[in-house]
């Protein structure tokens, strides 16, 4: 009965989201405040209904209700409780439901947010979010009902895919989905702007918190997936240029471009049309990712939901939204008023360059991912596009972008001067070069390019903090304490920028350091000691163990450093009998930012154990950097300009120290702006 209620709630939600779509849209058109005011309660209602439905499915999983096909196919009574819960989104139907819950959540958040969004813009945005919700609810109800019953109910379920029974993958999908689906709100805002034919700095300010939220979560989601791949797949790689990874990287790249172009729009009222296009592209790429992954076109042999009906349905949604939004864009965009202009060498120019590189990087990933598909369907020729292609094409685009990043951060709005920029960065650049030389000296005879990578990372980190240092010093005399006070008094969005950019630098350092990772593939018997990069690993023994819903062979190691014991670790090979599947759990031991990584291999013909030993110097920096990037987004979100419920503008703005932060869009032509050739601080 409860199950049917959950199903019925989805149908109700569909009906209500039609209301959420039509009524506010009509209200905004007719300028009727009453009709527009229907939007928020409808959006909240839709969210409540899908949340209830999600709760019902979770309850079914928690109680192992094997009368539901979905639970039978993805759960097991002996499964640890936490994985019973996370199993809800470990399958096509459940993850689609989670997707819709987040979609409705964002709609409801826009409905309740008290930040200054003009009523018409809010009404149209809620309506557009309703339209997206309609499409996905239809998809779920027609092709992927999570509440389908099974009679007679079996006594035991088929278990969740063992790879998903892992803490990393338990929280990875929700993070990623908040990222993906978060961009639907930006999309809805863009559509609303096009419908109304009005877009300005107010729009940019209204959109920015949502974009930041989505981007932060997407960053965390991708990082989590990468870390999972690192420890679970057993060979210590962290990015594989796998099509499905690429599907998440593309919206991230364009979303990053979007965050930056919105700044230009907010501060200088420029790049409006481009920003709208980016908003459309970002969500389109999120949809494309969904299509690629769920239709099975990329992975024809082993897809999550190899079902042509589902693939076609998502393709339909994809064409409707991408085609529809681009058509609306083509029709309406020329009517949008162009904003402020700027010199090529200026903050705006730098951000445009950022956008150019990021979108080109995204295009490269897009082409590399889809080219084999297109080629095969057009000519029948089969090719593979793997990591070597992406490394050869993606890096030459991203490295210049990273090199230019610190310059962009110190350049003035409207018109910058090259001399001024250089003089502000020579300390950071000098230290980065010194770091590079030092790394070369220490690792002489080692990798050639990696020290440059470290230098680049150092440059990025120092460049990021350079902004704070410069602005703190500009308070004039007053000593260090005064400068520190000034630095702390800088707007949080400035600190957010600093953190996010420093995070990029830290990730770059971590990536570069992988060049020094050490790998050894050996066979060991208990008591054997194998050296690995300054440490020694002693195999204590191999023994079987039965836990929960799996059996495992455990290899226990002791790590020694200079003959002293510094740690223990276990690596396992697990067999999940319900599915007859095996997984390898790597043994990790962290020393600072570095890790010793041991992976269980095969029992060799002579009875010894095959083992992979790695030393991964500074590897954790890759993910720490990503988390810092996301923290930067979070910090920027708490800036009072974006805080939900806070007054729109800081009073008098003593904390906001210059035209850059004041965010007052100027519409004066460039001639009038020549006076601001001094760096805008």
């Amino acid at each position: 009965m409860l199950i049917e209620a959950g199903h019925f709630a989805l149908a109700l939600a569909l009906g209500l989201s039609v209301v959420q779509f039509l009524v506010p849209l009509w209200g905004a058109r007719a300028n009727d405040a009453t009709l527009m005011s229907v939007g928020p309660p409808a959006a909240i209602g839709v969210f409540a209904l899908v949340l209830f439905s999600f709760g019902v499915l979770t309850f079914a999983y928690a109680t192992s209700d094997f009368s539901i096909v979905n639970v039978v196919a993805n759960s097991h009574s002996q499964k640890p409780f936490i994985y019973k819960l996370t199993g809800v989104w470990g399958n096509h139907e459940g993850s689609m439901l989670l997707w819709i819950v987040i979609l409705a959540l964002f709609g409801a958040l826009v409905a309740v947010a008290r930040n200054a969004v003009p009523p018409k813009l809010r009404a149209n945005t809620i309506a557009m979010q309703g339209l997206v919700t309609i499409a996905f609810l239809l998809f779920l109800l027609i092709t992927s009902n999570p509440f389908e019953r099974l009679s007679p109910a079996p006594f035991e379920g088929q278990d969740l895919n063992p790879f998903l029974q892992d803490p990393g993958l338990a929280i990875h999908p929700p993070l990623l989905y908040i990222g993906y689906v978060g961009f639907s709100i930006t999309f809805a805002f863009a559509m609303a702007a096009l419908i109304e034919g009005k877009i300005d700095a107010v729009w940019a300010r209204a959109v920015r918190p949502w974009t930041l939220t989505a981007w932060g979560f997407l960053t965390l989601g991708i990082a989590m997936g990468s870390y999972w791949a690192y420890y679970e797949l057993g060979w210590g790689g962290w990015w594989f240029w796998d099509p499905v990874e690429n599907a998440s990287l593309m919206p991230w790249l364009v979303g990053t471009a979007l965050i930056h172009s919105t700044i230009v729009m907010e501060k200088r009222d420029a790049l409006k049309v481009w920003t709208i296009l980016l908003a459309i592209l970002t969500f389109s790429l999120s949809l494309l990712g969904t299509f690629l992954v769920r239709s099975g076109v990329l992975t024809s042999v082993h897809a999550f939901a190899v079902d042509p009906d589902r693939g076609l349905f998502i393709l339909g949604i994809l064409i409707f939204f991408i085609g529809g939004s681009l058509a609306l864009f083509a029709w309406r965009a020329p009517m949008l008023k162009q904003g402020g202009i700027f010199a090529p060498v200026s903050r705006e120019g730098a951000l445009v360059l950022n956008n150019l590189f990021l979108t080109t990087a995204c295009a490269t990933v897009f082409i590399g991912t889809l080219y084999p598909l297109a080629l095969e369907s057009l000519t029948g020729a089969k090719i593979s596009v793997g990591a070597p292609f992406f490394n050869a094409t993606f890096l030459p685009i991203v490295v210049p972008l990273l090199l230019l990043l610190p310059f962009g951060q110190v350049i003035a709005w409207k018109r910058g001067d090259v001399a001024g920029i250089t003089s502000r960065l020579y300390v950071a650049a000098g230290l980065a070069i010194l770091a590079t030389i030092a790394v070369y000296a220490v690792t002489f005879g080692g990798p050639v390019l990696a020290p440059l990578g470290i230098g680049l990372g150092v440059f990025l980190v120092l460049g990021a903090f350079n902004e704070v240092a410069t602005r703190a010093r500009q308070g004039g005399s007053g000593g260090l304490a005064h400068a520190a006070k000034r630095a702390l008094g800088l707007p949080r969005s400035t600190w957010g920028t600093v953190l996010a950019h420093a995070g990029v630098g830290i990730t770059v350092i971590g990536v570069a350091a992988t060049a020094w990772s050490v790998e050894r593939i050996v066979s060991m018997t208990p008591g054997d000691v194998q050296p690995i990069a300054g440490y020694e690993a002693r195999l204590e023994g191999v023994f079987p163990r039965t836990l929960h819903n799996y059996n495992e062979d455990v290899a226990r190691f002791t790590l020694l450093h200079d003959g002293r014991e510094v740690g223990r670790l276990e690596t396992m090979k697990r067999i999940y009998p319900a599915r007859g599947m095996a997984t390898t759990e790597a043994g990790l031991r962290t020393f600072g930012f570095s890790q010793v990584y041991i992976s269980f291999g095969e029992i060799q013909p002579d009875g010894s154990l095959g083992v992979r030993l790695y030393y991964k110097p500074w590897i954790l920096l890759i993910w720490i950097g990503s988390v810092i990037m996301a923290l930067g987004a979070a910090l920027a979100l708490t800036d009072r300009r974006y805080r939900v419920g806070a007054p729109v503008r800081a009073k008098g703005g003593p904390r906001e120290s210059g035209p850059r932060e004041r965010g007052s869009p100027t519409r004066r032509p460039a001639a009038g702006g020549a006076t601001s050739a001094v760096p805008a601080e």
Partner: protein
Amino acid sequence: MRALSATFASLAFAAMLALAAPAMALGPDEILDDPALEERAREVSKGLRCLVCQNQSIDDSDAPLARDLRTLVRERIEAGDSNDQVVEFVVDRYGDFVLLRPPVNAYTIMLWVAPTLVLIAGATGLALALRRRRIAANAPTAAALSAEEEAALEKILERERG
């Protein structure tokens, strides 16, 4: 989506495990005694696709087929083939599909030049847009005023200065 990718990867993995005795990504028994030859074998292996996997190199893959290919690569290297000869040998049998870095030919030329083309097109578009905008922004102030308006403006400015 990574979750899904994981599922795919794991399903492939499961299929392999079900089909054959589990094999590991490069085991200690496969490694050549000569470290220089082994290093070359690793390098070659990293560029060859495991044909039954999703975008994995044979060096990373657990599939039995990947193991067979790794063994083949090592045999050819021990027999005295150069790296290119080994790759050629494998491509002759399995086609370009086996190369993770697609060769430049009529089929793939667009793939290789596309990123550069996108960058050039984007940069050109930007430069044009920027120029058009600047001209448009400058034009009205220069051309829109008639002689009478100029005179009127001059009068106002006079008053201001005075």
